[in-house]
């Protein structure tokens, strides 16, 4: 009892010191709101309780507020990184990497059914990348110090690699880090016969599943019919995707996970022998468990417009092959062009295709060369001029984020409006992720995720002075 009390006191004390309760006022700042309201040339941003309480030229800092004079400097929203691979490679929790007890006993006992992953990929759309994110990595905090206040990590493999997760970059436990384990569905179509067939087949299955759902509720019957088209479930249960099903309907940020970060993988690992796992897993589910393929269900959600979908298509060639394979299948999508290649069609050559897909674009912020020439093309500018909502794919490492401003500068000096360039790393990706009601712009009521520069953010001589995440100032690493 005594220990708990003192523990609680200690925790409160920690919390108090960590979170300065005083409101903070950034005064004399040029405020880039990243809204249609434009910028405020000289004004104050007032931060209280982690939120932006007020902003404007006439806002007076209240008594006792911590006042930071930003004269000559700029306040803008924190970078929103919507398509990151940060921290994914060094994930010791990745279930696949655990030693497999059945390995080395070739021909004896049931071998774990591993779905072959050819270059065209497979469908594991319900696989959550969050389950493979190891929280104790410096990279998240490092990115935060460079200004990335919102971070989404995505799986990256051909086909349907799974679900991306939205992270809170200052999280130290898995639960604090992962705020949305099912942020969006990732599709990475492969441009070959098998890849196009996969797209077509899986979306056909998803369409059937969607039809099943829309039928009047008849719980038993669809269960039987549903199991058949899903030829893969036999192969899937061995993979620890089951929790995805449980978590999906509630869509809760799974608070029960963090207390036992080391434990959960193990029970999932043990039932690897596929035949044993199935009867064991089914009663655990307790419900009458209609045998639905969770991967197909996720795609059915996509077709139903219930999930955000990011499709990795860096070139017009890939978009044309997508239209050729599943052109009639339409759903709101974000086209992610993280590896543009002018030898496979620049996106500005595919504006007709983009409009056909109704897509918004997340694009690598760079100029592209014209083949056989020294001419460079400002693709973002051309897309912007064509009226296509434009976000940028940010680099994955802290040094890259420092470079980001120079990439933007390069685009701006060759014609992209500065406002569009900065929105493309803040408000636009926030909108694509569906978190524009929380962050991504400077509006009263939104989270105070702010960056303070001592000049114009696009000016190479200006440097990043302060980073605020939910109103809390992130101390800069003094060695950098």
């Amino acid at each position, binding site marked *: 009892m005594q220990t708990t009390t003192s523990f609680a006191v200690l925790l409160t004390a920690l919390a108090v010191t960590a979170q300065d309760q005083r409101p903070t006022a950034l005064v004399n700042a040029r405020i880039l709101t990243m809204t249609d309201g434009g910028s405020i040339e000289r004004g104050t941003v007032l931060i209280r309780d982690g939120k932006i309480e007020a902003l404007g030229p006439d806002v007076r800092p209240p008594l006792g507020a911590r006042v930071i004079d930003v004269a000559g400097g700029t306040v803008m929203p924190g970078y929103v990184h919507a398509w990151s691979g940060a921290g994914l490679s060094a994930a010791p929790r990745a279930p696949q990497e655990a030693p497999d007890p059945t390995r080395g006993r070739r021909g004896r006992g049931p071998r774990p059914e591993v779905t072959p992953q050819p270059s065209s990929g497979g469908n594991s759309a319900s696989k959550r990348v969050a389950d493979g994110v190891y929280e104790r990595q410096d990279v998240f905090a490092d990115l935060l110090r460079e200004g990335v206040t919102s971070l989404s990590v995505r799986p990256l493999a051909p086909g349907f690699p799974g679900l991306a997760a939205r992270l809170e970059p200052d999280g130290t436990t898995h639960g604090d880090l992962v705020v949305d384990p099912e942020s969006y569905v990732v599709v990475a179509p492969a*441009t*070959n*016969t098998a*890849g*196009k067939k996969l797209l077509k087949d899986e979306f056909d299955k998803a369409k059937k599943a969607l039809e099943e759902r829309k039928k009047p509720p008849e719980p038993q019957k669809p269960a039987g019919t549903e199991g058949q088209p899903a030829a893969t479930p036999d192969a899937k249960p061995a993979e620890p995707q089951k929790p995805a099903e449980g978590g999906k309907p509630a869509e809760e940020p799974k608070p029960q996970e963090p207390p036992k970060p080391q434990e959960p993988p193990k029970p999932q690992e043990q039932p690897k022998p596929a035949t044993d796992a199935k009867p064991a897993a089914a009663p655990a589910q307790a419900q009458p468990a209609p045998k639905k393929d969770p991967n197909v269900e996720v795609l059915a959600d996509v077709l139903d417009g219930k999930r955000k979908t990011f499709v990795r298509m860096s*070139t*017009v*060639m890939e978009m*044309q*092959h997508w*239209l*050729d394979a599943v052109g009639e299948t339409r759903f709101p999508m974000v086209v992610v062009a993280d590896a543009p290649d*002018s*030898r*496979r*069609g*620049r996106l500005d*050559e595919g504006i007709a295709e983009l409009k056909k897909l109704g897509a918004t674009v997340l694009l690598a912020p760079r100029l592209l060369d*014209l*083949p*056989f*020439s020294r001419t460079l093309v400002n693709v973002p500018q051309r897309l912007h001029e064509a009226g296509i909502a434009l976000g940028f794919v940010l680099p994955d490492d802290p040094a890259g984020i420092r470079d980001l401003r120079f990439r933007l500068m390069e685009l701006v000096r060759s014609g992209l409006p500065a406002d569009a360039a900065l929105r493309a790393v803040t408000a636009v990706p926030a909108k694509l992720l569906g978190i524009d009601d929380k962050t991504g712009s400077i509006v009263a009521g939104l989270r105070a995720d702010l960056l303070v520069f001592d000049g114009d953010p696009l000016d190479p001589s200006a440097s990043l002075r302060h980073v605020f995440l939910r109103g809390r100032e992130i101390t800069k690493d003094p060695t950098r």
Partner: protein
Amino acid sequence: MNLALPIGVALAVATITADLSAQRFQGRRRPPREEGGAAPVADAPKAERKVSSWTAITGGDVHIGDGNVLRGATILIGDDRIEKVGHDIEIPEKATRIDAAGKVVAPGFCVVRMQGVAAGGGSEVRDDLNPFDPSIKMALAAGITSFLWQSGGGSNTPAGKSAIVKLAWGDLPSMVKEENTVVSMRVPLDASSMANLRKLVRQARDHLDKVREFEGKADAKPEDRPKPPQGVDDLLAVMQGRKKLWISAGSGGGGGFGGMMARPSGGFAQKEVRQALEVAELVGQGVVLDVPVEAWVVPDEVAATGSMAIVMPRLVVSSDPGRPDDTGSNIAQAAILDAAGVPISVTVPTGGYGGGATVGTGGILGRDLHTPFVDAAFAVRGGYPSRKALRILTLDAARISGAERRVGSIEAGKDADILILDGDPLNYKTFVQSALVNGKVVYRKDEEPFYRHIQR
């Protein structure tokens, strides 16, 4: 001399007229078949065809593709196809006009073999085409607007996939219009392979007889329709004239460094040519001899089967001193075959010193497809009549690829694949000024980096 000229002209005219009757080569021994290969044009132009955009190329000297030239003629293009060709053509008001006065207009070149342009390495060409491959523009600069893509084949029986790939820049859906017009196999066949082929042909014949019998019956039920025996689909298609059969020698298809340097006995020599013609007799259709070395020794036999040939005029294979008869390559091969009535196309030496049947910046100019007309010119140097030499790259190349219904000449109803050139199409000084594929301008010399610096 006084007499020779008129006779020569008369002969040339006669040849061309005969060519225009089109069925000449298929019909030497057998009456032309109904299915396949017969119709020179996909759809006859219909008056009611709905056209959303018109283009007119006016005032140029139009090489039709069969050897004839219409001076100062107009080509009217409706969307992706040629609507009319000739003089005094009424041009719709809204038509986009392209002035070709003082220029030469020719059909886009069809190449019978090309690699590394647009097509990936997959088994289905349409699934990994890259419509933005920069080498498409390079090929267009060389005048190439379509090529035959092939995959598989080259075994002891007819097999393989093929497609006519159009170099429609940036437009994936219109790049593949015809598929599987060609299958291929190789010679020499040993006794057992030949016996196997005979067996398959017999099975296919039996099947065709059954089908005929079935179709003759008045009370035939559709479900009783005889099913083709396994493994003869491609052979059946060849026998019915639906697909062209290409025959090459050895595994290298006569091309390659080995093909260039090999002794006649190792290449596509007389013996292999005769066996290929034997196969032609067996299937009852003319075949395509894929770069034969010694077909020039037996031109009449080739012509008698209704076969065609792809030649490599620059191929040099020395004669065999140990044999008393004619052996080795002959630069006059194209001319000799033509005189016998065998349509030919050309291809370039592959391997050895450079690019081969591709376009790129890695090879030695002249040993790749940057200058297909130079290879046609080599045929002319060997005696091929220059007046109709353009056929080598256009109409006859299209026939050899099984694509003559779509491409190869400027005729009403065909795809509008057209070049506008600043001189004679086969002159080495000539440049492609602009190229149209499927009625759209996809290449302009002044806008692309390859040759725009050359201003004369």
